């Protein structure tokens, strides 16, 4: 280096602006937050520059706001950058957990420098929601990445805090930002900016305060990886002799480890039909358990029975018209809707159901012989279908419609004789037979066959599509039953079937299996 440049370097100021990036989704108030930070800095005599690239992302897309601020100098104006430099950002504020993840991927979060402030709530992207199975991204991967990438993390559910205090997330993020202490301004300064804002000042201040305190007391609360499944063991006493008998039958027929799931099944089926139906379930389960034991299930922790306990209950509690009507007219459902909608004081609530019954469902609810006879009489079937098959708006809160649904749900006592029940039982028997046939030969594969029942769900067209996927997945069984890794392949096929609606991924996976 020559002398000139050495002396030149010495002449240069070493001042650096504080750099702040805000990652939000359109409509989350990222612009408000950005304006607040600028107003705060200017109020304190700093120079602040903010910018954003909203484009069409002002709708619901991911948006980034960028702010640089530096103490004012009367003699000179700073030249500030209009975009963040990855690796040189002091604060990243993310208004949602995956946006925090996105900020890490953009390289703006670095261990030496960045304070990451993020809300841990999730707003699922279309890509996550549209999957026929569970497309929700694993939050633990975000946590482990942000923990590694950031110098310091302030993370908790700021959306919940905002909702609780009647404001929006920008106030909560501003509170957490204030608490981070990155900008050397007092809490009162931050609050003064909110007060100068105009709209919704009180709720904003309350939310700000709650988030501020939370950030100081418990700066980091990781989101739970998955919802906790509610699996209690069967109780000692139920308060009803019939139920007590069911529980003792359950306890006597299954080992302790399998009891909670079987108890969940018993509860479900009692609710679906009656205790006797739950008793049938236990009989079938006991039978499956003995076959499991004969096939050396103990070495596998009775995985076969464990899955059967779950999926047999689901199969027996199929979704029919009676079930839907039953769920819609319950008092507990009326209460739940009230709570979800948030009805206050003297407000009155009415629910309107969107139903579209077809002749198929009507036949399913008729006695087996009659239903089948109508189905076989094409002319009659079509004639009736034209009268039945249309969208209906059912106002459950009015006496007329309530009575209608009430009567349909009352047909529960005839359910065992219906065409739908016969079909469901035949389908279930076939599925269990397939699994049982494999059990002695390929235990793991038999377990996977049981799990494939997950593919059958929904109503009408969706249900048909589910069954078709179920059939296609199981069509690979002859190719897999002799393979040691057959279970792995069947699991992959099932996962593929849940990736898209039309089963394109499944077709690909089936081709792969065929080429094995």
């Amino acid at each position, binding site marked *: 280096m020559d002398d000139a440049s050495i002396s030149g370097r010495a002449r240069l100021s070493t001042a650096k602006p504080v750099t702040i990036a805000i990652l939000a989704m359109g409509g989350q108030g990222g612009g408000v937050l950005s304006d607040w930070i600028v107003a705060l800095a200017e109020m304190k005599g700093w120079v602040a520059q903010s910018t954003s690239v909203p484009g069409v992302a002002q709708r619901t*897309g991911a948006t980034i706001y960028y702010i640089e601020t530096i103490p004012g100098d009367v003699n000179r104006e700073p030249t500030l950058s209009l975009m963040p430099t990855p690796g040189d950002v002091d604060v990243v504020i993310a208004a949602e957990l995956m946006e925090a993840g996105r900020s890490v991927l953009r390289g703006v979060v670095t261990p030496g420098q960045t304070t990451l402030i993020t809300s841990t709530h999730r707003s699922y992207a279309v890509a996550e929601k549209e999957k026929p199975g569970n497309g929700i991204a694993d939050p633990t991967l975000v946590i482990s990445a942000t923990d590694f990438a950031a110098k310091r993390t302030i993370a908790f559910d700021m959306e919940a805090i905002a909702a609780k205090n009647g404001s929006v997330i920008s106030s909560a993020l501003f509170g957490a930002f204030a608490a981070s202490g990155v900008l050397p301004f007092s809490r009162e300064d931050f609050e003064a900016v909110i007060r100068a804002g105009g709209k919704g000042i009180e709720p904003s201040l309350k939310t700000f305060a709650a988030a501020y305190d939370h950030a100081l007391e418990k700066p980091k609360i990781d989101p739970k990886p998955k919802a906790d499944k509610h699996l209690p063991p069967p109780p000692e006493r139920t308060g009803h002799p019939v139920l007590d008998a069911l529980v003792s039958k359950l306890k006597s027929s299954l080992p302790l480890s399998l009891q909670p799931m079987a108890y*969940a099944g018993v509860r479900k089926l009692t609710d679906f039909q009656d205790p006797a139906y739950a008793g049938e379930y236990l009989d079938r389960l006991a039978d499956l358990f003995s076959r499991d034991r004969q096939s050396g299930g103990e070495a596998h922790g009775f995985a076969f029975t464990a899955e059967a306990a779950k999926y047999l209950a689901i199969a027996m509690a199929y979704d029919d018209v009676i079930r839907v009507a039953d769920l819609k007219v319950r008092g507990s459902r009326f209460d739940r809707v009230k709570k979800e909608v948030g009805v206050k004081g*003297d407000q009155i609530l009415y629910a309107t159901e969107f139903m579209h019954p077809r002749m198929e469902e009507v036949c399913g609810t008729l006695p087996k012989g009659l239903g089948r006879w109508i189905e076989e009489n094409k002319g009659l079937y079509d004639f009736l279908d034209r009268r039945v098959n249309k969208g209906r708006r059912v106002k459950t809160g009015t006496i007329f419609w309530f009575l209608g649904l009430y009567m349909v749900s009352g047909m529960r006592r005839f359910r065992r004789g219906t065409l739908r029940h016969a079909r469901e039982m035949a389908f279930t028997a076939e599925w269990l037979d397939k699994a049982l046939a494999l059990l002695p030969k390929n235990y793991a594969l038999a377990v996977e066959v049981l799990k494939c029942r997950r593919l059958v769900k929904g109503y009408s067209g969706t249900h048909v599509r589910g069954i078709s996927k179920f059939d296609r997945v199981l069509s690979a069984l002859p190719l897999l039953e002799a393979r040691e890794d057959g279970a792995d392949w069947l699991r992959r096929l099932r996962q593929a079937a849940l990736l898209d609606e039309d089963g394109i991924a499944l077709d690909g996976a089936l081709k792969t299996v065929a080429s094995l």
Partner: protein
Amino acid sequence: MAERSFAREVEDLKLGEGEIFRGEGILAITKALLQSGVSYVGGYQGSPISHLMDVLADAKDVMEDLGVHFETSASEAAAAAMLSASVMYPVRGAVTWKSTAGTNVASDALSNLSSGGVTGGALIIIGEDYGEGSSIMQERSHAYAMKSQMWLLDPRPNLPSIVKAVEDGFELSEASNTPVMLQVRIRACHVHGQFVAKDNRRPAFTLKEAMENPVRDVNRIVLPPASFGHEKDKLERRWPAAVNFVKERKLNEFFGPETGEIGIITVGGLYNGVLRGLQQLGLADVYGESLVPIYVMNVAYPMIDDEVIAFCQGKKAVLMVEEGAPDYIEQGLNTLLRRRDIQTRISGKDVLPMGGEYTAPVMLKGLTSFLEAHASPLLGNRPPVPDPSPVLSDERVKALATVVPPRPAGFCTGCPERPIFAAMKLVEKELGPHHVSADIGCHLFSILPPFNIGGTTMGYGLGPASASAFNVEAGKRAISVMGDGGFWHNGLATSVGNAVFNKQDGVMLIVDNFYSAATGGQDILSSRAENPRRKTNNSIVAAVKGIGATWVRQIDRTYDVAKMRDTLREALTTKEKGPKIIVASSECMLNKQRRIKPQFAAAVKAGKRMVKERFGVDEDVCTGDHACIRLSGCPSLSVKETNDPLRDDPVAAIDNSCVGCGNCGEVSEAAVLCPSFYRADVIMNPTGWDRFLASVRSKVIGWLQRRRESRRVLFAEGA
């Protein structure tokens, strides 16, 4: 009514001499126009200059006081043609639009305008939508300046520089009788900063005076032989006049030491990025001190040869920083140096990428390569530069890339366009997929998941025109989509007229949401709002019938999915030839909510009986297949995990942001999905009759529910 109100900001437009203006770049430009004595302003909205149009619309009082005429032009072509007022009269005019999309539309008028030249200052403010967040094709507006011999200003991205560029632009235009383009990049449009204001100026010569004293000069009209004269005048008089003005007024700037082995030439808009890069290399500071000479071209076109020569002479190498392709300035620079036989090495696109935004890492990399090649001693001990690569190469971060979902823009909560595309998907299931020509506007979000509908997009109002080749006998018809914005912008003649005239046997779907919604909810001809300053409520159906369309269907509630589906099916299968036009109308929900929310709240507060609707999902009935989401994608329709051990997949759930548009219910009904959706009607301030009915109903229903419960043997809740 535009999406955002600038009523408060408009107050800032009244600031006088010496007062400090604080705000967005767009607002600063508006203020600069008023300070420059502008007579008329026009333009067409579009990111990133939508807010400029909105501010102008909200500032009508200020403008009227100053005698400034403002209009929302029908298109960029209309706006550019408006500048014709400055051809013969000494009135200053400014127009604005999104570029390059808008400049393409305007180019016919622009060519004519610059050929004949102007008397009054004519300024074209273009919001350059290039780089991250852009919604259009990536091109440079620079080409237009070059081909039409207009001047292109590209000021440093801070408020004082942008304001000065507006003021200088008018003067430059007048000094050289040439229209001037002022390019502002997307980040600069939204940049918040401050500048010292001046008083607003009334135009010295008014439009009224012009109209009452008309002047004409046949030599200014593009018609031979005058047009040959124009070319000569441009090259021999106007160009040198512009160069002299730029030089004399020092519109371009020099920073850093006067001499040096190397130097950097940058267009003004990229100056901050260059400076930050140099700062990271230890060669500049945040206050603009630089150890490297920098020549800032605030005038990107024309190049001021003398200034460039003076800057390059004696330097071993010079880096040219210009964004996008082709590298017009670098090419010009090379030609210039070659002609003058100057041996300075020109670097540019060899170290900086030909395409893409010059983000901070790109700039840093380019500067480093240039300095390493030509002035490595300057780099000295190489202070550590910002480097995220250790983070990005970590396994934990790589794993993250597999889970962070893309989040493109999409239809808003309750958007009335969603049911249209749900209906299209349902028809697709019956009749198979069709070729779909899309257009520009919110409805283009249909190309994304969950709808995945739409094959091409050729331009605003060109959707049906772009399906015009598909007018042959076939088993299926082509479908084209166009919004109301595109329809009035260009589509009525170019798409509908074209289809009628050529008997185009396709289906044309006109999505009418009462606004130019994608650009921020501005009013257009068919808007249903009463706008005192404009004539709205002009029917699209009447317009298409007026130019000869015969098969026309109006659907006045797009949420009626079944009707939408049936109408589409009919259009696709009817024997009738010629265009089948469906006008699907429902108000943009974003704007509707902004309109009715305060009204609703006020009515409730006043004790009026009001019914609030929202949707819900019965979680017990939902089976977690998410077919409803694949036909909707509404932000308020999401999923949630349950704690039911017998469920593997999350169930659908509707959150509090639901506006009760009805799409969920209609879709599940039309598609025969599942009965889990319900609409909750909450009666606020119920009347006595409401209360009486509710009490009778709940007594009867409650009795029946208790009766059923008492007869049922169930495990206790939560056991």
